[in-house]
């Protein structure tokens, strides 16, 4: 049996708790993700996909329920421990605001390692270069983020998400802002990484064609996972 990376049990998320405007956006979510799995998360806008992704990514806390990452219950962790766990276990790829514009492509990939270790080193630079080569952008290593196309930026973002060798990559509509060719190329890149390194992916997408190429599709409607 494959190692379990992620488990959500009866996870609920509500906003404005205790007020008349209290709104529950996620209801009793149960979800499991195993090592090496590539999961597509689909659903209409406002269904709670991004909220679920933020909770899984430890950027937000559930109102109730239990979230376990690599067997560790995250409900008992403080902010510093959550930040550390996030940095070491989870990589992010966002739809917009992909890279930090003040840094070059290589430096963007180095950032998670730099934040973790405190200082840059030849080893960190080599790993960043290797990851850029993996996403086919070694020639653009010294380009500032602003001097690259959307597709190239998204490839750098994938390389950055892999910098800390995470167990899980959360991608929030990573191809939503790209043309069909670039979208396909970025998706294939993630799939390749998934196959080669066994990194699990949780991909939020509206693109049914891409979703069908994932291992599993989960649909969220009105804050509930559809059976």
């Amino acid at each position, binding site marked *: 049996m494959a190692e379990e990376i992620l488990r959500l049990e009866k996870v609920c998320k509500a906003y404005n708790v205790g007020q008349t405007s209290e709104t529950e956006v996620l209801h009793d979510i149960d979800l499991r993700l195993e090592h090496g799995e590539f999961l597509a998360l689909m659903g209409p806008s406002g269904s709670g996909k991004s909220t679920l992704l*933020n909770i899984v*990514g430890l*950027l*937000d806390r559930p109102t109730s329920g239990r979230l376990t990452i690599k067997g560790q219950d995250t409900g008992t962790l403080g*902010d*510093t421990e959550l*930040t*550390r766990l*996030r*940095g*070491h276990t989870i*990589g*992010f790829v*966002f739809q*917009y*605001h992909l*890279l*930090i*514009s*003040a*840094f070059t492509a290589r*430096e963007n990939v*180095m*950032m*998670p390692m*730099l*934040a*973790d270790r*405190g*200082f*840059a*080193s*030849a080893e960190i*630079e080599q790993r960043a270069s290797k990851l850029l080569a993996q996403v086919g952008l070694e020639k653009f290593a010294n380009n500032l983020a602003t001097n690259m196309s959307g597709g190239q930026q998204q490839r750098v973002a994938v390389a*950055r998400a892999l*910098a*800390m060798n995470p167990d899980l990559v959360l991608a929030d509509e990573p191809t939503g802002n790209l043309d069909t060719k670039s979208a396909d190329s970025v998706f294939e890149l993630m799939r390749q990484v998934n196959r080669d390194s066994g990194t699990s992916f949780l991909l939020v997408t509206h693109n049914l064609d891409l979703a069908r190429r994932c291992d599993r599709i989960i649909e969220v409607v009105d804050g509930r996972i559809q059976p």
Partner: protein
Amino acid sequence: MNHWLPFEWITAVRFLREGRLQTLFIIGGIAIGVGVIVFMSAMLAGLQANFIKRVLTSQPQIQLLTPDQVARPLRGAGGEIEDARVQRPSQRVISIDQWPKIRSQMLTMPEVTAVAPTMSGSALAVRGDASRAITLSGVEPDSYFKIVKVPDYIVAGEPRLTSEDIIIGIELAKDLGATVGDKLNIQAASGANRVLTISGLVDLGNKGVNQRASYVALRTAQSLLGMIGGVTTIDMTVTDIYAAEEIAQRIQAADAVEADSWIKTNAQFFTAVQAQQTSNTLIRLFVAMSVAFGIAAVLIVSVIQRSKDIGILRAMGTSRGQILRVFLLQGGLLGFIGSLFGAVMGACALAYWHSVARQADGSELFPLILERQLFVLTALLATLTGLLAATAPALRAAKLDPVVAIRG
């Protein structure tokens, strides 16, 4: 990427570098503020030093005098006061009791740098039909010229004081129609008189003083004023001019003399110096505050502009503390870099003003004092101001919810 700088430094420097125009403008603002502080502090220090030099090189810092002569009420055999009205007696010119002993005592005090006994009194300077009332100061040139820099004020002749010489103020020379080498008949109130040769003319910077000032040898004054072997004052200088009053009080408490410090005798001047220092401090405070608000405003805008970057950094495992330090460092760096430019601007402005601003006689208005300490302190103060000003924006950045930040 630099291998020696930590993550926070690299990120702070890059954020500042990317916001080029914004960074340049705020550094310009800080530089102007720091420049004003450096310029004002150095100029006021120079002006003050000049004023103090002028005041303290033309008068002693502490002067020992005979105590006031007081009348005692007449008492009867039973000790009862016979007459309640006590009239203040006229103050006779008398010598300080045991002055050589007091002089020796003063010379042993570590904070005292020079001691000079003097004999002062009124006399009349007569030349032909002209006569003028003068203040006759009998001095020992070797010790007295260390306290009052008479040689520095000589405008004609030389600072020579043998028993036949007299140095007089330039206005007195004009009134008497006399110049160096001329003879003057000095007549004391007791009737004694001496014919002395003018060896030098002094300009002490004050018309009234120049009309009355005259210096003769101590023995000449003693014989003219009828007080052989006596002195009326003992003049002194001390190491710390601002401690003069405290030292004077100590001397007065220990010896049977009255001790006046320059602080007491120039109370108005001293108040003016203190008012100048207070206004300088206030100006510095307000300039520092405007610099601080400028830095804070720029960093708050930067936090808003960079909220998505902050969100991404938080998502990739950057802690709140690291974000806090990134923005604090930006404040500190802005303050420090601005202070370097400001110090150069202030020094250049000061050098220019020093070359342009002149006194009526063409001499410099103030000495150019550019102490390293001023620049180091200003840089420290500006860096600290930058750090303090960055506190609110940095806290705001650190508290930013990454979900909200990434969503924009």
